[in-house]
């Protein structure tokens, strides 16, 4: 009992002491990275390697996707933003005091993903107009596109996700995308893992998703767009319409550990990480 | 038919005898007083008659109430509810239910009998009169029952029981929770019932028992059955 009493008394005091002791720690040494779930696997692997070498901490997070990363790097909450979309004028407008410096580290193809049964039944190619009709919920059955008699269920990405911007850019070019359709067969997903999980559990579903996330999943298939398959060759040749660059972005020129990290990913050794996750290296792109 | 008939009846906690064994018969119209110190088991015995014992207690021996051999009934036997409509217990503390004075007086009636609204009212008012409360509440029948004084509430509980026109009335220390003034009023109300109703009255107050009852059982002697003496029964 006496022991408990003294514990209760000393606990807050001890906590305060611990706090003040910790405050002097080397926490600011942490290299903080956040943003796109597409770039995330690459950054996690690279961080693993560098952490093993220097012993200094690197944290990787994916809150809010690409746009979240770009916002946080301006706020100074992180040192490097991962982005699976180029810096747009709207981003520059939103953060006028911020100097986004992107470094391209690879390229990824976003696919319009359908389920294998739909693909095998004949939906192997979509035109730009057909894609718009699907995502605007004007086409609601795969039968209309030469597929099975099965309702279409659309999963769209949250706002701010690089994947969604790639799809919008393909479907609408420079026009602003219309608001989401008021369709009962439409839901919203966040990260790439969630998108894949929902696609695999929903018959008749379709969603935009990085093709690298479906390579090991035969239940899902990537349709060709305007007759172009999403192959490394077509992406490298710039023929595939929904490819997108992958960036690491700093606020102002990269320096210190952030530069070290970016240089590593861009180096020959770091580039080997990209094919592991289904992305194209700078070399494959001829850059 | 005897109103109550005990034959070597005792209340036990597992194998331990708490009250009894008691053997006695009560004829209709008689008044029986149960007395003894607090803890002697008076209230327990009273509750045994209508199946309201706490879960861990049970009755051994024979116990007939209004002709029913209730010692054989299980705790949740459905016959208990019917019996309780005829052998009504009034507890020590005056419990009033949410609702008006009238609603309280008619509380049991509404469930146990099939009177219409007017019949309910008539019976409830008659019961309030029998309990000696009518003059005090006649103008506030629709007031919430909890606004009554403690003494009035206890008589309301009595009226609630009387409204059922019970063949047997079981009163558990009806005056012990009351101050002196209320005590006299309630005791007067109880005295008014004697002779017209069959009553079992539990009281730790020997004088009260002597004043009100034809017969009495002193449960004091039963608390230590090892000595072999049964309860003393006084017949007047």
């Amino acid at each position, binding site marked *: 009992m006496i022991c408990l009493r003294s514990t209760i008394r000393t*606990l807050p005091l001890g*906590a305060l002491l611990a706090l003040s002791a*910790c*405050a002097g*720690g*080397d*926490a*600011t040494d*942490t290299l*903080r990275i956040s943003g796109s779930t597409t770039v995330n696997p690459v950054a*996690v692997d690279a961080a693993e390697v560098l952490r093993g070498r220097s012993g200094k*901490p690197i*944290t*990787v*997070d994916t*809150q*809010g996707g690409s*746009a*979240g990363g770009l*916002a*946080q790097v301006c706020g100074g909450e992180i040192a490097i933003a991962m982005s699976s979309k180029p810096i747009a004028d709207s981003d520059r407008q*939103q953060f006028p005091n911020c100097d986004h410096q992107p470094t391209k580290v690879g390229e990824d193809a976003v696919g319009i993903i359908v389920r294998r049964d739909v693909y095998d039944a004949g939906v192997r190619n979509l035109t730009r107009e057909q894609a718009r009709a699907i995502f605007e919920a004007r086409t609601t059955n795969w039968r209309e596109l030469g597929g099975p008699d099965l309702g279409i*269920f659309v999963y769209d990405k949250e*706002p*701010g996700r690089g994947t969604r911007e790639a799809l919008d850019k393909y479907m609408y070019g420079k026009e602003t995308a219309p*608001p989401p359709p008021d369709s009962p067969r*439409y*839901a*919203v997903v966040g990260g790439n*893992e*969630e998108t*894949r*999980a929902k696609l*695999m*559990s*929903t018959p008749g579903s379709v969603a935009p998703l990085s093709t690298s996330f479906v390579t090991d999943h035969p239940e899902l298939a990537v349709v060709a767009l305007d007759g172009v398959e999403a192959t490394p060759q077509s992406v490298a040749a710039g023929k595939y319409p929904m490819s997108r660059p992958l960036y690491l972005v700093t606020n102002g020129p990269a320096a210190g550990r952030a530069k070290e990290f970016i240089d590593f990913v861009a180096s020959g050794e770091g580039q080997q990480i990209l094919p592991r996750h289904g992305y194209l290296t700078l070399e494959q792109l001829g850059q | 038919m005897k109103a109550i008939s005990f034959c070597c009846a005792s209340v036990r906690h597992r194998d331990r005898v708490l009250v009894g064994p008691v053997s006695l018969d009560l004829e209709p119209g008689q008044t029986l007083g149960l007395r003894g110190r607090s803890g002697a088991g008076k209230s327990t015995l009273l509750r045994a008659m209508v199946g*309201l014992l706490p*879960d861990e207690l049970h009755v051994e021996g024979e116990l007939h109430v209004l002709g029913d051999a209730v010692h054989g009934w299980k705790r949740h036997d*459905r016959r208990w*509810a019917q019996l*309780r*409509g005829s052998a*009504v*217990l*009034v507890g020590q503390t005056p*419990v009033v*239910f*949410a*609702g008006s004075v009238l*609603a309280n007086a008619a*509380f*049991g009636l*509404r*469930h*146990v009998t099939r*009177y219409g609204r007017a019949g309910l009212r008539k019976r409830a008012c008659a019961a309030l009169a029998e309990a000696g409360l009518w003059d005090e509440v006649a103008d506030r029948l629709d007031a919430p029952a909890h606004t009554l004084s403690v003494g009035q509430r206890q008589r309301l509980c009595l009226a*609630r*029981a009387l409204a*059922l026109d019970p063949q047997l009335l*079981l009163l558990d220390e009806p005056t012990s929770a009351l101050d002196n003034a209320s005590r006299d009023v309630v005791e007067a109300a109880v005295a008014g019932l004697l002779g017209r109703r069959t009553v079992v009255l539990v009281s730790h107050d020997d004088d009260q028992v002597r004043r009100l009852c034809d017969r009495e059982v002193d449960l004091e002697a039963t608390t230590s059955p090892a000595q072999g003496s049964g309860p003393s029964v006084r017949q007047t």
Partner: protein
Amino acid sequence: MTDLLTAEADRAADARRPRSTPWPAGLAVAAGLAAALAGLAVLGFLLDGATSAPLDWLTLLTDPVWDPTRARFGAAAMIWGTAAVCLVALLVAVPLGWAAAIGLTELTPARTAQALRAGVEMLAAIPSIVYGLVGLALLRPLVSAVFGVPGGDGLLTAGLILAVMVLPTIVAVSIDALAAVPAQTREAAAALGLTRTEVVRAAVLPDAAPGMRAAVLLGLARALGETIAVFLVIGRADGRLPAPHEVFAAVLRPGQTLTTKIGGPEAVLAGAGSAHWAGLSALGLLLLALVVLMTLAGLRRSPTGSGHRQPRPRRAARELRDRAWIAGLRLAVLVPLLLVAGVFGVLAVRGAVGWNPAFWFTPAAGSGEGGVRDQILGTAVLVIGTAALAAPIGLGLGLLIAEYAGRRAAVWLRTATVTLGGVPSILLGLITYDLVVRTLGWGKSWLAGTVALAVLVVPVAAMVTASRIVALPPARREAALALGLNRTQFVRSVLVPWARPGLLTGSLLGLARAAGETAPLLFAATVFAGAAGLPSGIAHSPVVALPTHVFTLAQDSADPAALDAAWGAALVLVLISTLLLLAAVPARRRMEADL
């Protein structure tokens, strides 16, 4: 002259008295200030955010379209979504919860009832992320199959999951209300010849009704504030406001609630001071207003009128009805118990990897590989930090409420404390994110998470402590004061030791909930990868934690390895929060024995 003598004597007495610092009073005041600060921070932050840019409140309440790119901020669709999921939850949970509470208190022997109630309360020990996982992996396919909803995402699924989550609240508060009806009331009614169910209906329920209605409101407050479990299964589709005639069909469709919108990515995207941020803050304000309203209404127990016009059935019908009700109520008791058994059974089986000690002691590697060593450490850091912060404040606040405050002030303080406890955790996450992570520039850090979690724990700890203090037998107070103790000495040597089991119980109950909180951690304290279990500093020291780990893995539920790891981590998490609850049992026993 006599006055002077008395004063003299007092001074002499004081000289003999050992000097004592009045720390209890200081602690109470400090705790009161800390709690007030937290409350003001919540309100002030949201008000400040909502007014930081011009915002049309009429549009917010009536326009279904939420479209930041076109600067249109309408919340009508989210209000509908919130109302729909809460309504579904209540429609299922209220009849079931009430019936189970009645069955447990009125028809079950006391000892069995106590054990069964503990069983039902286990439902409350399961963190919302685990419910999310259950919803994602089990309920979605079920709804999809039964109602033909593709994928199974939608308002109905979210509502059903919420129903399970609010059930323990409704059962527990209803049981308290029923148990507060004196046994004499039941006996008095039974003595008049009423059957068991008639006793319940006519005598017990009228007395317990205000408390049972309060149970619904408190359950509703919980449902309104829930984020994570709903987030995973609702489909998060904006702009869905159905026409009146298609309301029923719309319940089967994806939608959005206030909490899932706030919990989504937009808080990170919206720059401070932008119209977007103002819109989000307004959503938070709206949510807070609803929850506070429900909590306050739940605390105010309105007096009952007498409803005494019921048909009188015949004798045979009376008996039949009694039987039918008893059977129905018994069945209702079974449902929550089956749910508990079901959830724990699923966890034990699907989370099989969690039984392997290696899973506890190896670090995670990639998606679904390795164990959860660092996550356990991180959760431990958060729980211990929260305990160190919340226990003293809880004690102080409890003392303030039950001892130092006057009667009227105590009522206010109680109400304010319970209200603070009802603030949805997602709002705490949002506020901590903006205040600590963004404005203070700390980045994500374990301490920020600890502060957010402490706000959740302090009200529980304070309320249980206060009830304990109130339950101090007056004779003890009298005896202590009769020995000449002054107030400080009395508080220190009588009240604080007496309150200790209360503080312990309240803190552990709160911590069990905090251990499983996900939403505030996502914003304030945890990252996806790279954080060690043990932080190396304060600012910029995020951790990894079990609930957020489950959240990340659950989103990858199509990958069998990730799903297995998610169930495993969920099992570990539930074991930890169950341990915290079990640790509270001895202290609770002692309190019950004292009464």
